[in-house]
């Protein structure tokens, strides 16, 4: 199994969710994060003073998938999250040892 973790722009979440659903992904976990990258934060101006906001709001998506599906999932995210503008985010993949569904106790691929 693989664990896919992506950081995307917040307003792309709906599009990504739909793209993932289309690939048959049945579950994911999402969290609000702040990101720092080439897009060097932003400047907000309050009362004329510039405030350097180093971290921009991003959304992190985590999806456990079977090995054979990993590539497709990465592609789906890439496709849906891409705006061509800086700050679009990244997708990371690493190995997953095991997975368990708490409710049923199902293991690994069955648990995804």
């Amino acid at each position: 199994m693989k664990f896919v973790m992506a950081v995307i722009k917040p307003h792309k979440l709906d599009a990504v969710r739909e793209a993932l659903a289309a690939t048959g992904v049945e579950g994911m976990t999402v969290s609000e994060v702040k990101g720092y990258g080439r897009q060097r934060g932003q400047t907000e101006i309050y009362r004329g003073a510039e405030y350097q906001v180093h971290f921009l709001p991003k959304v992190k998506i985590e999806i456990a998938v079977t090995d054979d599906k990993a590539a497709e999932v990465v592609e789906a995210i890439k496709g849906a999250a891409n705006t061509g503008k800086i700050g679009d985010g990244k997708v990371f993949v690493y190995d997953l040892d095991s997975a368990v569904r708490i409710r049923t106790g199902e293991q690994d691929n069955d648990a995804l």
Partner: protein
Amino acid sequence: MFKFLRRQAVPAFSLAAVLLTIFTPDAAFAADQLNSGDTAWIITATALVLFMTLPGLALFYGGLVRSRNVLSVLMHCVAIACLMSVLWLIIGYSLSFTDGAGANDLIGGLSRMFLAGVGTEALSGTIPENVFFSFQMTFAIITPALMVGAYVERIKFSAVLILSSLWLIVVYAPVTHWVWGGGWLAQMGVMDFAGGLVVHATAGISSLVIVKALGARHGFPNDVAPPHNPGMVAMGACMLWVGWFGFNGGSALAANGGAGMALTVTHIAAATASLVWMLIEWKKYGKPSLVGLVTGTIAGLATITPASGFVGPIGALIIGVAAGLVCFKMVQIVKTAWKLDDSLDVFAVHGVGGSLGTILVAFLCAPMFGGLGLPDGKTMFDALGVQALGLAATVAWSAIATFILVKITAGLTGGIRVREDDELEGLDITNHGETAYRLD
């Protein structure tokens, strides 16, 4: 006609005060008689001005700091409100509004300590003296609370309490006596309807002095966190706006056309200054911001304050424009040129606004601007001179006295600033043991 007469609570002056404050054509309301309509309005105004601080100002300031310090800001405002109230009862009111005998030019006496002798029957003009006391108390609350904006996010709570207390007695009470209590400026006929000098100039200047002694926040100027909750800022500003009707309208000490005009011009100046601030931002930065808009509101309100009983709607428009332009500029100057971390711009908004209004009123009270006119025999230059003198004296005394009071406070508290790691961790948890948002 003169403000000081209107504020004056000393019995000896009350007859004149009453006669002068009656704007109704009907002279049948004689002196020394309670007017229930006036009383109803001033009680209400008292509630409105308290509402300005609690929670208006507290929220306005609380939203501007970072989330780890928001509770400390609220705490400052509420605790100051409590402490000033008690001190006002004990001695502040008496020093401000009673006859100081030989020293009366400079300070009042002690005859009204603990409101001695003021029962339910005592009048001040057409309203009960206890209502006048309470109305004035809400001014004595908000003035030191305004200064909270200067020292947020890094001051010791004990220093806040001590400094505010000393300041009430040493700066606020005397200046109030000078201007509204029959002191030397009142005798010269200075015009300060609702506190351009007494409230905004004193608090604004003193803020700069405190900031100088306290030092800037960690990361200033390039790496300070932006306002954590602009919606809270706007909510507080709205409450300040509404409450300011009591502040300026109530300063007429009557429910009449004078009060009505005061609130009309107050509103117009606030609206105008907000729009001006918005337009400057839009032009300069491409986007008008909510925090900017409501900062303009406060600038307009502070600037109209001394003038609100003397100018008409055209004057209010002019004051609104001036407030927006000048205060906006001053915010930049204080932070960028002077490099002073007057964190929430108390000086640039209140100090400068209140001073600006104090000067402008000399011109704008003229009938040609729709103003209510100067007293007979006074020229605009006479008025300007008195206003400038009043401002200079207020600034000088506030600066010198606050400088010394900060030293005393630092001595008593072992330095008025918190330790750096407490500052970084945030005052909420380190000074008050609380966490502001637990939204899980």
